[in-house]
Each structure stands twice: as structure tokens, then as C-alpha cells.
């Protein structure tokens, strides 16, 4: 079937509107980067102010704790991704490939937790962590990151792992754990990449939980440090925007290189959910 390629008025108008929306999507971020390079306290930027000037970045990193926050964010993100990957791929394998009695009921229970607003869990978890003396630790930031969505995502991919392959390997004398590590995990690798990116993004941008559980500034993650920076210096726009740019930079670079995987998890959530 030949697709119409002609530029009808409707198509021109639609293209213009969608392009305009796309521009609005990136304009604030371009503005953010532009202001982060100026040292003026005014927002009326002239092109002459926009010379490569890293003083805001240097100041944010050396004087305003951004170096520490960056380190904390990286540790938290790496820990969370490892935990979520391991725990949810194991769970998905158990749910999909093993005859565990009552597993479907348990799985439905997992899914039901996705309806619970975070605030319901937040306060008791805060009190529990306090009692366990886990405040101001990385564990407090990492352990609660496992959620039903990760297990659901992995299970959807686990369906495609052929049972025959696992049975054949078993007959060949391949042990249980070795089958999981050498056959299952490589087969679900694309899903693991998608899940890792998903976990990276949600952990990196997590704000409320780190804000209340890690109150010492040397244990703060980027968004939290970012938020104190903005409220302490309302007029120094350049420095605040440098902080915002630093917070945005890592997910953005990852997005540039792994765009497809970024989008995949979300697309899947819609199509299969």
C-alpha cells in the first residue's frame, strides 16, 4: 500500500504543532545550561555573557557539597541496580519456570502493591529504619528500591525462555544454579539492560525518601543537595542552574547512548499491562 507522502495542510499544521511542542520540551533545559555558564545574577542573558565559564560548576562541586552528593548518588544507583537486577530476575525465574504452589496468588499480591501510594509506606518505613539505626546509610536508600514493577517486567521476558532448552541442559547434567546463570540470564539480558536503566533513572531522581531518611549533608544524594542549594541562594541563578545541569547530565548522557532501552520498558508497560 502506498502511503501518501503529500504535504496536505493538515499534515503541515500537525508537524508544526508537534515540532513546537518538542521545542518547548527542550527549551527549559537549554535555558538551564545557558544560565549555568553565566556569572550574572540577572536573567536577562546577553550572548556576550555566554562564554565557557565553569566557575559555577567549580563552586558547586568544591564548596556546596556536589562532589559528595555525586559520589553518594553513584553508590546508591549502582547498589540499587545490582540489587533490583539480581532479586527480580531470580523472582521472575521462580514465578515463571518453577511449580511453586500458590505462586500466582503471591504474584497478584505483588501487583496489588503497585496501587499503594508511596506516602502510606513512607512514614512507617522511616520509623522502622530509625529503629534499625539505618538512617544516614546507603542501605536505607538501596533496600526499598525493589518493587513489583521490576519483577513484572522480568517475568514478561522470562516467558520467552524455552523450557526445552532448560530441560535439555538438565539432562546434560547442568546444575540448577548453572542453568540460571549460564542459560537464563544471557537470554534475558536485553530485559536486564532495560530494567537497569529504569532503576537507574528512578533511583537517581528519587527525592522524598532520601530527603527524610538521610538528613546528614555528607549522606545526601544529588537531588537533595540540589534542593538545598536552590533554597539557600535564590538569586544566584547561575550556580543553581549548574547544580540542576549536573543532576540532569548523567541520565541525559545515558539516554543519548541507550535511547532504545530507555523507551522499551515504558512501551512494554503499556502494551502488556
Amino acid at each position, binding site marked *: 500500500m502506498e502511503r501518501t507522502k503529500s504535504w496536505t495542510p493538515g499534515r503541515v499544521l500537525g508537524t508544526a504543532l508537534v515540532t513546537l511542542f518538542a521545542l518547548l520540551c527542550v527549551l527549559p533545559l537549554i535555558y538551564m545550561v545557558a544560565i549555568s555558564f553565566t556569572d550574572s545574577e540577572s536573567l536577562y542573558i546577553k550572548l556576550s555573557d555566554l562564554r565557557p565559564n565553569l566557575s559555577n560548576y567549580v563552586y558547586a562541586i568544591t564548596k556546596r557539597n556536589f562532589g559528595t552528593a555525586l559520589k553518594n548518588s553513584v553508590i546508591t544507583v549502582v547498589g540499587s541496580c545490582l540489587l533490583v537486577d*539480581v532479586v527480580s530476575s531470580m523472582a521472575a525465574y521462580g514465578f515463571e519456570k518453577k511449580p511453586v504452589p500458590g505462586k500466582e496468588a503471591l504474584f497478584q499480591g505483588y501487583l496489588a502493591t503497585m496501587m499503594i501510594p508511596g506516602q502510606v509506606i513512607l512514614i512507617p518505613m522511616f520509623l522502622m529504619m530509625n529503629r534499625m539505626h539505618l538512617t544516614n546509610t546507603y542501605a536505607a536508600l538501596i533496600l526499598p528500591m525493589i518493587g513489583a514493577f521490576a519483577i513484572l517486567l522480568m517475568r514478561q521476558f522470562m516467558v520467552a525462555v524455552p523450557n526445552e532448552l532448560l530441560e535439555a541442559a538438565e539432562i546434560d547434567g547442568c546444575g540448577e544454579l548453572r542453568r540460571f546463570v549460564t542459560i537464563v540470564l544471557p537470554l534475558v539480558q536485553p530485559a536486564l539492560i532495560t530494567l537497569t536503566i529504569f532503576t537507574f533513572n528512578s533511583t537517581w531522581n528519587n527525592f522524598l525518601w532520601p530527603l527524610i531518611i538521610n538528613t546528614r549533608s555528607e549522606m545526601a544524594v544529588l537531588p537533595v543537595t540540589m534542593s538545598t542549594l536552590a533554597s539557600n541562594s535564590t538569586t544566584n541563578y547561575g550556580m543553581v542552574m549548574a547544580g540542576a545541569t549536573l543532576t540532569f547530565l548523567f541520565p541525559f548522557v545515558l539516554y543519548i547512548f541507550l535511547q532504545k532501552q530507555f523507551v522499551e520498558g515504558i512501551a512494554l508497560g503499556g502494551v502488556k499491562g
Partner: protein
Amino acid sequence: MTTAVTRRRASKRTRREALIGAAYIAPSFVLMFIFTVIPIFLCIYYSFTKYDMTAAPEWIGFDNYVKLAANKYLGLTLTNTLQYVLITVPLQTILALLIAAFIAGSLRNRFGSFLRSVIFIPVIASLIASAAVWNVMYEPKGGLINQFLGLFGADPINFLGKKTTAMPSVAAVAIWKNTGYYMVMYYAGIMNVPADIQEAAIVDGASPWQRFRYITLPILKPITYMVVTMGIIGSFQVFDLVYKMTGGGPARATLTVAFMIYNYAIKDKRMGYACALAVGLLIVILLIHGIQNLFFREKEDA
């Protein structure tokens, strides 16, 4: 004899497999139990207590709920939250759907896929960084939006400082940030629509609008259901944007339920009271979800 042995061997094998399976599921179960299930029940328990973290929780029955019902800001907070939900959810859903449908239908080329990539970018930005950027955008003195409006001779608007504009301005940031996410979901859904259905409709002389209205839209219904559900649950919990952009002001015009919970729990250390409010939020979300299910089912019957 032999069949009995095989059967016994088979059942032994099944039991072994079940145990191994349970072992695989166990870590997720432990974590989900400790960090999700226990807190849910604790939240309900605390909501019937007075607890300020210095002494043990003291059982006070329904006192928190009674006090909450009499709280003079509760009505305003609920209205604010509802206003935010009613601005963000319909607009982000419709925008996402229209953009996805247009790109899939008329712009299925490199430029279209470039636009999709660009529209997704705000999704990856943290809400706090987004809030900081939009604070600057909204600045009455020299913010980009007011500079733009100034070109037409308009007086600067204090978007976040006026009671009438504060909440819509915060909601606009959420729409800016969320549309790309739902657009991706819709786009994937449209790509799943069998091409021959569309082609048959074209042969039958259906206009693009008719094809959208009578083919694409009904097929996308499960996705719309997901988008609306996720949108409602997410919007009811709005915190980061309010915290960073307005702090609940001006004059409590952007005070939302989640922000109120934070204030009572973390600022005032009234844990029981905050938990009662959280339980209330859960009930409201479940109620609205129930209404939404009814609505979606009814339309299916029609």
C-alpha cells in the same frame, strides 16, 4: 509397581522443583514483605495512635480521623490536589495520544523519530532539577516566559506567587515532564495495531479522523486505561514539584495531600496523625480507581 515408582519419583522431583522455585522467589518476598507489606499495616496501626517518636505509640482509637475531619485545611488541600489531578491527567493523556497518533500516522520518518526522542527528554530529568529550572522560567523579573510575554507588551506575571496561577503553573511542569512518557506508551500501542485494519479502512474511504476515532482509539483503550490509572496515582502523590516550587504557598493555594503528610510527619513529628491522612489518601485513590473502572467498563458495554 513401576508406574508407582515413577510417580513417586515424579512427585519427589516436583517437590524439589517447588522448593528450588521458592528459594528463587524468597529474596523478593523478604524485601517486599519488610519494605512494603509491613509498612502498609503499620501505617494503618499508627493511624489509630498518638506517636511523636519520643514515647511509645499510644492507642487513641479514631481520634486522628475525627480531628482530621475537623481540620480546616483538609477541604482546601483536597480541592487543590484534585485541581492538580484534573489539570495534569486529561491534558497529559490527550497530548500524549495526539502526538503519538500524529507521528505514527503522518510522520513515520527520521524527523518523526527525532521528535519522539526530543519529547521524551524531560522524562529523564529529576523533578527537583525540573522545578529549579521552571522556577527560573517563571521568574517575574527576567524569567524566560515573562521576557516572552513582554515582547507583546504584557506586564510581568508572578506565576508562582499568585493564588490563581500558582497551581496551574506547577501542573504545567508536570505535563511538560510526563507527556513524553505516556506518548511512548501510546506509540508502542499504535505500532501494535495491525496494518491491514487501517488499510481496509482507507480502501473503504474512511477519513484520517474517522480512522482515529473508530479504529485507533478503541484499540488503544487498554493503554488509555493504564495511562489514566498511572496518571491519577502519580498526580495524587505530587510532592517534589510543590516542595521545590511553592512550598505549598501562596496562602496554601498549592498545599497538596502529600505535602501535608510530609509536614505533619517530618516537620511536626505527628506520626499517627500523618498516617491517618495517608490512609485517607489511599482510600481516596482506591475510590477514584473504582469509579474509573466502572466508567471504563460501562463504555465497553456501550
